């Protein structure tokens, strides 16, 4: 019993207590998920449209390859659709679907045999040489984006995802920890490390900015 004397209602009951006349687009994630559970599959479309761009940008930030973004994003939402009946409202749909996206990205990275040491080596060796030369030549906006993408891509997987989730998508440490399935302290150190690496690569650009 709560302090107000009312028994605490289950999540699904609370969710459906929202006004029924609201259009689907205006309903919360939880209501839409409950509707999908009840067989209202058009509700899933709203969920997809609500998050597809963020997921696409997350994947783009991780891979810096526009060609695979749509395919991988599609895989993310198919996985979400298949697993939606297991969703128990213990986290927000937002972080849940991000976790799926991160895991899919990791799988893809593993398939490509992109290992953390390899990325680190790239960072230290080829990236240093190639990026350093480009950055020193005062890049234009397009080039700046390319350099930034390449610098991110050169980071090891766990650092790259952490920095994207924080600086691109603006998640809190707690949410990042939930998405990446690790401790908050780990997120903190990964972010610090990732930024240190990026600073080293993008040093000339940062000097100008400062």
């Amino acid at each position, binding site marked *: 019993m709560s302090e107000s004397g009312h028994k605490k209602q289950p999540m699904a009951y609370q969710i459906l207590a929202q006004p029924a006349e609201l259009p689907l687009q205006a309903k919360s994630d939880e209501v839409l998920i409950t509707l999908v559970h009840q067989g209202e599959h058009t509700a899933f479309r709203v969920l997809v449209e609500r998050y597809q761009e963020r997921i696409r940008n997350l994947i783009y930030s991780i891979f810096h390859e526009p060609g695979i973004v749509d395919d991988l*994003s599609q895989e993310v939402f198919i996985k979400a659709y298949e697993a939606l009946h297991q969703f128990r409202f213990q986290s927000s749909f937002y972080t849940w679907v991000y976790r799926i996206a991160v895991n899919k990205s990791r799988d893809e990275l593993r398939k490509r045999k992109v290992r953390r040491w390899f990325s680190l080596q790239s960072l230290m060796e080829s990236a240093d040489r190639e990026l350093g030369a480009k950055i020193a030549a005062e890049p234009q906006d397009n080039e700046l984006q390319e350099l*930034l993408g390449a610098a991110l891509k050169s980071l090891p997987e766990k650092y790259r995802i952490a920095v994207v989730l924080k600086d691109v998508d603006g998640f809190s440490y707690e949410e990042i920890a939930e998405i990446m399935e690790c401790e908050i302290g780990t997120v*903190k150190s990964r972010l610090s490390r990732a930024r240190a690496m990026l600073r080293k690569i993008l040093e000339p650009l940062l000097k100008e900015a*400062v």
Partner: protein
Amino acid sequence: MKPQTKTDRSQLLSAYLDGELDDVQTRFVETSVLEDPEACRELEKLRALKNLIAARRHLAPSRGFWTRLSTELERRKREEENLLPFPRKYLPLVSLGTAVVVLVVGFVLFQQRATLVDYVSRQSERVQKAVEENVLKGSLMPLFTHIDKNQALQFAMFGTLPLDAKAETEMRVNEDSARGYTIDVDKKRERKTPTVTVQDFVDEVQPSRVQFQIIDSLLDLGRVKLEGSILMAEDKAMAVNPELSRLNRVMLSGIAAALEPNQRVKFEQFLHSRKSTYMLAGGRRGPESAERIYHTMRTPEGMAQFVVFSPDTVLVSRLEIDLDSLRRHTGEMVERQRAVGVHVNSLIRRMAEREIAVSLQQRAPAPHVRISGDSESFSIQVSTRWEGMPAMPRDPWVRPRMSEQAGRHSQQPDAGFDMQLGGDDSSFFFNLDMDSITVRMGKSGNGGGFEVFKGDPRSRSRAVQGKERKMSKLDSLMNEMDKRERQRERVQKEKQLPGLRR
């Protein structure tokens, strides 16, 4: 509060920028930045980096993302439903039903396990029986037919018999090798076996008429034993009587026993000049009685034990050969002799192709029979403990010329029980232990030259018993010899009894 290392400071600054520090940490960072220009510069760079990443250009919105996604979802759903032979909604029900069926069947099997084990055991026995009954299939044919007395004498002296008309392959029994008693069938050795005739023997040793009669009967007995010692079946199984391995020595010993001491000297010269593998060892004792000599050639009562082997099996079988039948079919045998030679070669080749290796861990008595060979030959080694081996006289009249090797063999320790058929290259090797693998089987039929009866004599059919009553002259002679021997022993005992009383 003070950060311990540069990394700690970087982490604090990074978290400060992200707004993830508590009040105390935030104040500390702000103070540090004010006091420490290096920390200030680092913070600015971090902020610039954060802004740079945040300002990263986003992808253009995807058109038709949902259309593509929903199409793909539909396609997968159809594929998944096609895989199941029933609607997907029944999947939990079907799973539950399957689990229940598995549990029920498992429970029933567990309850009926005794019956099940019994059933499996019965099936195994049936398979075993089928294998046994398929050995020695079809007509049986002797490997040797028409052995004359000259060949019998040659066999007694050298232990060899030609296997084919061209005499390229021969059967050879050995006692003078370190392997003990062996029966080999292979290509003829380079050392040519001298030709010996009974007439040569008579000319040199000059036996009396009675002695010649005894020796002639002995050779006749040996000849018949030889003809019934190796049989070939149509299914390329071969039956070998291991008694054969010592038959030549027994025959030679019998000849020597029939001679006077001075004749034995001539006989030894006869053997030595023809490089026989045996030499005389009887000293100056007088000749043995005919009964005693014939007794050594006597076949033990009951059916003789044969080693029967095919490309797949080796077993011990008790077989009884009807010698009368052998004679009836002698003419037929001549025609079949060519086929026998082909079968022998095929058997040897097929055995060498086998690749079976069995290793028994437990210790077991040394094997009584060992079969080995390669693609061109085979060898059967027989232990002296073989029950079918003819008894040697206590004081043998002959001994192997290579007595040292024979002596070494007698001290040879028993081998283990490693059983192998197949192995390296094209060789095969098989040890047979009498105690563990004794299979009684046989065959009856009129198609072949030999009549072989099966199992306990009491259980034979009347037709078979009728055939059995027709004893050959040789059987009659041997039975008569047995009778006389027993009578003589009885008389000797009776003579000794009154003396003892005194």
